[in-house]
């Protein structure tokens, strides 16, 4: 690629990946544009309360306090060196232009180089009662606490299939909210088996164990290997019931449930930018293809952080920095080779840890095997598992976009961000195919809803 005189470099996302990328770009003498949906930097993991919020009682960052404050400080410290634009939704990428929804209205922005650090969201699996008021995702439960200083209920239960479960359980318990159950849908044995790999990042593993230990000391021991679950209630959550690994049934009264099953990449912008995707059986997701340095299959478009593959906040910081170096190198800048090599080594170490973590928390496929026909999968459109199965059986549907076209699954406000993967899982089961064979929902602009207005910004 030929050098550009004054390239417009745009970073999407002000979480750990986007912020660290911007920092490296500034250091090289560029003035990157950083676009972020939130009012303040930090992403989901280091989300801050609104500037106007006062009197929050909780220290939600815990061990990560210093990392969080460091990320929050970068954009502040660099002042005008970074063109930081909060409260800005990027809803489309086409050719070299981004479509934005800003506080002033619709706008567009040309870019020469684009670094997408769009993060992740909770992975949702339908179960009886999952659409009742009072059921949140784990991430949603965490955001309520971090952003607004409020809990999702007065007696809460959590269900998960990843490291977020012990963390959220800990955060709620520490904030003084009674956590009546903390249920892991993955087996305990996989964690034991993966211990050697988890020690590749001994400090992280130790923190995880500490959360588990603290939770246990508070009487909220995580129960593993949950086979089935059900939220009960008439108008809203009244109880959580589950079946344990031995087949025994349990039930606790509660007024809120946080439940989600790992994370999924928010990769719609990479899709719209034209990046090639591949099905990753180990992640059980379609992921945008990305080199270790962060390059995609589209020249000039880069990916870092959980928006490319779930790796967590520490990996996101490292990838943000490494990817920015690759971007600079492609712009013709001289890049500090030892720094790049050091980041590559750190990322390799993290990758070993992540592989072990993924294996310790396998996707709880068994929960999708038992979804009843009358269970709602797509709650925007009220589409049930039975409707999906019927389409597969009676309408020759073998592909998930076709399922969307014929059943309306994923056609509502979320455009499949919440239900798309569960729909693909159910379709694959109904057709007797592998998940990778039924395809993925194609992204269509806008990535999130945009208002009809007469004028542009």
């Amino acid at each position: 690629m030929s050098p550009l005189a004054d390239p417009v470099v745009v970073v999407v996302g002000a979480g750990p990946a986007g912020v660290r990328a911007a920092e490296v770009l500034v250091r090289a003498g560029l003035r990157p544009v950083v676009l972020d949906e939130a009012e303040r930097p930090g992403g989901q993991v280091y989300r801050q309360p609104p500037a106007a919020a006062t009197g929050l009682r909780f220290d939600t960052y815990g061990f990560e306090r210093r990392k969080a404050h460091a990320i929050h400080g970068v954009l502040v410290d660099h002042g005008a060196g970074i063109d930081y634009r909060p409260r800005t939704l990027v809803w489309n990428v086409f050719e070299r232009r981004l479509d934005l929804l800003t506080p002033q209205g619709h706008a567009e922005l040309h870019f020469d180089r684009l670094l997408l650090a769009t993060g992740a969201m909770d992975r949702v699996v339908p179960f009886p009662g999952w659409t009742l008021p009072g059921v949140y995702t784990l991430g949603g439960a965490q955001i309520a606490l971090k952003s607004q200083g409020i809990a999702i209920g007065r007696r809460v239960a959590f269900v998960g299939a990843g490291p977020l479960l012990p963390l959220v359980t800990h955060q709620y318990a520490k904030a003084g909210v009674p956590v009546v159950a903390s249920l892991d849908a993955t087996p305990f044995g996989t964690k034991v088996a993966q211990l050697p790999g988890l020690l590749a990042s001994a400090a992280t593993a130790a923190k995880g164990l500490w959360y588990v230990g603290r939770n246990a000391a508070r009487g909220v021991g995580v129960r593993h290997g949950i086979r089935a679950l059900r939220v009960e209630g008439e108008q809203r959550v009244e109880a959580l019931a589950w079946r344990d690994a031995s087949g025994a049934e349990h039930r606790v009264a509660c007024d809120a449930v946080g439940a989600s099953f790992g994370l999924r990449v928010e990769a719609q912008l990479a899709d719209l930018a034209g990046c090639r995707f591949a099905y990753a059986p180990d992640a059980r997701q379609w992921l945008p293809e990305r080199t270790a340095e962060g390059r995609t299959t589209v020249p000039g478009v880069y990916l870092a952080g959980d928006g490319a593959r779930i790796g967590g906040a520490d990996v996101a910081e490292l990838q943000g920095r490494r990817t920015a170096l690759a971007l600079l190198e492609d712009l013709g800048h001289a890049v500090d080779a030892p720094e790049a090599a050091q980041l590559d080594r750190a990322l390799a170490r993290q990758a070993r840890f992540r592989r072990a973590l993924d294996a310790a928390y396998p996707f709880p496929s068994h929960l999708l095997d038992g979804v009843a026909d009358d269970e709602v999968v797509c709650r925007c459109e009220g589409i049930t598992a039975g409707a999906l199965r019927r389409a597969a059986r009676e309408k020759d549907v073998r592909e998930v976009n076709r399922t969307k076209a014929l059943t309306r699954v994923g056609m509502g406000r979320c455009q499949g961000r919440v239900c798309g993967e569960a729909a693909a899982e159910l379709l694959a089961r109904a057709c007797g195919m592998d998940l990778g064979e039924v395809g993925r929902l194609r992204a269509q602009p806008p990535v999130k809803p945009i208002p009809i207005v007469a004028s542009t910004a």
Partner: protein
Amino acid sequence: MTERVRADVAIVGGGIAGCAAAVALRAAGMTVVLLEKQLCGAGASGVNFGGVRQQGRDLAELPLARRGRAIWEGLNERVSDDVEFVASGHLKLARSDADMAQLEAYAAAAAEFGLRLELLGRDAVRKSAPWVGPGVVGGSLCAEDGHANPRVVGPAYARLARRMGADVREHAEVASAARADDGFVTTTAQLEVRSRFLVNCAGVAAGTIAGWFGERAPVRPIVPNMVVTEPLPFLVDRSLGVCGGGVYLRQIARGNVIFGGGDGWADAECRRSRPLTRTTLGAMREALALVPALEGCHVIRTWTGIDGEMPDVIPVIGFSSTTPDLVHAFGFSGHGFQLGPVMGEIVAELVTQGRSASPLEPFAIERFIEPAVAPGTAVATEP
């Protein structure tokens, strides 16, 4: 290894017209192979606005559209699926006195074809449609027009064709088609089809296929840019169009408002298409002018697809001018959805009887034959 199949008729293109032709030909007892490059009904048939409209058509199309309208009435039973056809009425709006004069002239001409249109003045249009914006001066209502769900119709016809015994092949892009001694040989990467008849319903690719038989059919790709809102309280009980054709809009029972207007983007090979933001924002402005209550409502998705348009904006329907037993039905120019079902019957008539009950003269492919170059005339050639 190449699979070899034989049929009375090979159909290229699994849009509504092609699939409906397969159905009608099977009903007439002929064997059929249908070749679709992607999935049936996923092209222009599946991504269009969904207007089931007679009003505003070229008068030459009206006999076909009138005949087609009767099929829509019983389509759910015919294809055993809910195609969501609603006879909401189609209201074509005038935004100037000149527009109104145009609507009046059209209504008089359409009456000759038995199409009854009700002309509404400034007050009457507001009584009938109180939600229209201040720029509207009148309108013309076709009560029997309406809309349906385009995503459903093509696949439903394809399934019906299969149930009736047609050999429907998807992901089967035609690589060549040629005349052979006893009919045609049509090939895909995996397949060789020998047939007595060949039907060209290939949409934007149909001009290329006509070219294989020495015929000129200047099909231009068009890329209608579509927008849909989140479900909203039901308000717009008519399908809407405007004089000049800028914007069109309908609301479905679920509550979503669907509108279009202007073109998206397609690549040179017509394989990929994308909505264009300036078109989407322009359509938003126009939709707001028609229905001001949409202000601030959320758009949740935009999409587009590729259709084929002829220079005179009416399709090519009929026998080839060069090749016996080759039947064309393409170039519906952005308004083929309503005509799709009737095209099946017309194609089957041409194949089985050699003629159609509907007047097809205006759609003959001969209209695109270029005048022969006189002998001795110098012809400029590309270097």
